[in-house]
């Protein structure tokens, strides 16, 4: 019986502590313009990152296409190997992304 009473009391004390701590906390809340600037800054950063990633992607694509053309004519086995490897990587990427999306939705 005592065992039932003690945890209840502690829970009440916790709730009281939560209430008092909340009351005592004095925050400095930034103005709306701070949030607007932060959003603007993050959006600009996102576009910059997007451009960088696209540039890298096109650069890589160019290198790989050149490599594939070279291998197609001179080392056909290497060409086939490259094709299989890229398909495996793509499938893994697809599953990883899908898993992350499902996790975020949950």
């Amino acid at each position: 019986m005592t065992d039932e009473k003690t945890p209840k009391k502690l829970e009440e004390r916790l709730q009281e502590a939560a209430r008092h701590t909340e009351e005592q906390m004095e925050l400095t809340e930034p103005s709306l313009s701070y949030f607007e600037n932060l959003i603007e800054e993050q959006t600009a950063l996102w576009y910059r990152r997007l451009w960088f990633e696209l540039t890298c992607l096109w650069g890589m694509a160019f290198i790989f296409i050149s490599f594939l053309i070279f291998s197609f004519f001179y080392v056909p086995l290497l060409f086939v190997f490259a094709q299989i490897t890229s398909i495996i990587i793509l499938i893994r990427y697809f599953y990883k992304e899908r898993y992350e999306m499902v996790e975020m939705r949950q």
Partner: protein
Amino acid sequence: MDSDLIRRAQDGNEQALAELLKKHYSFIVKYVWKMSGDEQLAYDVTQDVLIKAIQKINQFNHRSKFSTWLIQMATHTYLDYKRKQKKKKELDEKLRKEFPHSPVSFPSDWHEVQEALWKLEDEHRIPLVLKHYYGYDYKDIAKMTKVKVGTVKSRVHYGLENLRKELRTDDR
């Protein structure tokens, strides 16, 4: 209304997003502050949470409350911060010393409880704060902390046990 602001923010309305973040700013700071006992850390974690919220606003699916979504991000961001801290013991000492100097320091029962709570391990303290400070149920806490419901229940139970021990130790 939150849902209206969220929908506008998801449609790309920056003004709506700014209003939404401003509205929840204090909530996040207070949550991290209560959980960690470190005011500066609370502001730092909140800043990161705001950035994540801006980046991922379109991934919010309206199934849970927006505040729950923010708390989930804040908890993970806080844990990441802690993981990055190499000298854990030094940090814990800092947390214990810092709060009494802040405006919240008053020698009273609730203060003792708060102090004792900060002495607990993260894995016990976080579910305890979410359960007894914010009133979330075990299922929500399990989702937020990405552990099983049974694990949450046992962590809350052992958290309360440890808190009780800590308070008895303080009494002596």
